């Protein structure tokens, strides 16, 4: 042991001094920081390192998924029956609504055709499972188990059953990072569903609150208004619910009103999200159409075929 230490002490004279090494590495860090901040040349590096981190994520996720698996497998028959009857009732209800919706949709398409507007093709979605959420308190990042192998691309919109969740910022090979709409750096073009008033919804770092900082005091907005994506930024397809206005404070001496909204999606509770391939920014629609994920469970849902244009 003693000899060993002495040996290492001796050897250390050959390696560059500690301070020099720190200086070199610090310089390298600063270069990396600047390059990463200004441009996006390092995406490939990130992807490569991300692939090595993937096993760690799987291991970290294992207890949670095992627990879920156990719970799913040990629910009593009674509970299952209850659940089934509830789901059946829900399915009936949804079906009834969907019938009306189909009628409305075809009517809408007819009207649009009459107006000579382009008929909207409905978006395609794929279910992805969330592997982890918000590792860092200042960034609301989630990691999902679909990557560029499944056709995920940067900027792709993510929704859950209730509304918009966020968008993909880094499509890795096997998993992707997405930023939530509640991230303090995230802004999202929205419009008020009631009257089409356009504005921007900015994240606050709080899962339950978005801010609408750019609305003048005389804007026509009320508590309870539904905000939907306007589709103007290009990243999000239009018409998905984003948030519900929670409070409107008009400040007479200030230029802008203080408006906050509560996200429609349950950002801190979701386990699965849906990735949208919208008709406009779809890089490769065929990839989604027939794809069946290898790990089963989720299915690629081509939500509907593009309806016949009238």
């Amino acid at each position, binding site marked *: 042991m003693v000899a060993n230490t002495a040996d290492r002490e001796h050897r250390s004279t050959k390696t560059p001094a500690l301070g020099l090494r720190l200086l070199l*590495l610090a310089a390298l*860090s600063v270069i990396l*920081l600047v390059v*990463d901040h200004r441009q996006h040349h390092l995406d490939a*590096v990130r992807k490569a390192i991300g692939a090595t981190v993937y096993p*760690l994520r799987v291991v970290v996720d294992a207890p949670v998924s095992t627990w879920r698996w156990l719970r799913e497998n040990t629910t009593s028959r009674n509970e299952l029956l209850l659940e089934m009857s509830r789901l059946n009732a829900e399915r009936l209800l949804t079906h009834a609504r969907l019938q009306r919706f189909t009628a409305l949709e075809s009517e809408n398409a007819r009207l649009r055709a009459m107006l000579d507007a382009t008929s909207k093709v409905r978006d395609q979605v794929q279910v992805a499972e969330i592997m982890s959420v918000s*590792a860092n*308190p200042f960034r609301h*990042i989630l990691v999902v188990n679909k990557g560029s192998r499944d056709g995920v691309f940067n900027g792709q919109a993510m929704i859950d059953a209730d509304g918009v969740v966020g968008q993909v910022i880094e499509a890795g090979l096997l998993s992707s990072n997405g930023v939530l709409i509640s991230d303090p750096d995230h802004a999202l073009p929205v419009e008020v569903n009631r009257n089409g008033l356009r504005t921007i919804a900015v994240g606050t770092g709080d899962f339950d609150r978005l801010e609408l900082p750019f609305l003048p005091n005389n804007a026509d907005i009320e508590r309870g208004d539904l905000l939907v994506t306007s589709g103007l930024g290009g990243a999000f397809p239009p018409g998905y619910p984003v948030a519900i206005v929670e409070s409107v404070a008009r400040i007479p001496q200030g230029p802008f009103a203080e408006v906050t909204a509560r996200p429609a999606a349950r950002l801190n509770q979701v386990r699965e999200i849906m990735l949208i391939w919208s008709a406009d920014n779809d890089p490769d629609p065929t990839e989604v159409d027939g794809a069946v994920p290898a790990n089963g469970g989720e299915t690629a849902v081509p939500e509907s075929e593009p309806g016949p244009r009238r």
Partner: protein
Amino acid sequence: MSSVNASRRLPVFICIIMALMLAIVPMPDWASPYRPDWVVLTLIYWSMSMPRTYSVGTAWITGIVLDVAHGTLLGQHALALAFVTYLTAKFHLQLRVFPMSQMTATVLALLAIYQFILFWINGVAGTYADAVAYWGPLVSGTLLWPIVAHFYSGIRYRATRSS
């Protein structure tokens, strides 16, 4: 010689991997601001006890992996970790003979430097950050240091004995 090195390196490597896993493990909302900086604590310990083998280089590579895992700017955690381990390795002889209370106070200072570098880079890059949330890991990390140090010294003792 090389077998000695391998049997020494493996436990430390596993410790770093475990710390990285603890850094990305999901935590409930109320607890996540208080997530201790496991990776920093681990690297402080090992660069203090084996500064010739583990210092700025190991820390820098671990930091890059941490950057990717957290989705922060590449080089941010790497720079902070490298600087903190530099200080630890530089003063390892003093640190080793400190009593636990004094050592814990030093670790608090090191953690504060680490958080400050992160805070500083966030500020320069224009990433919004709530300053209060930087204090959470500081408190939890300092409180956990005696336990972490005890745990790791057990590992070190066993690794050096078996070699």
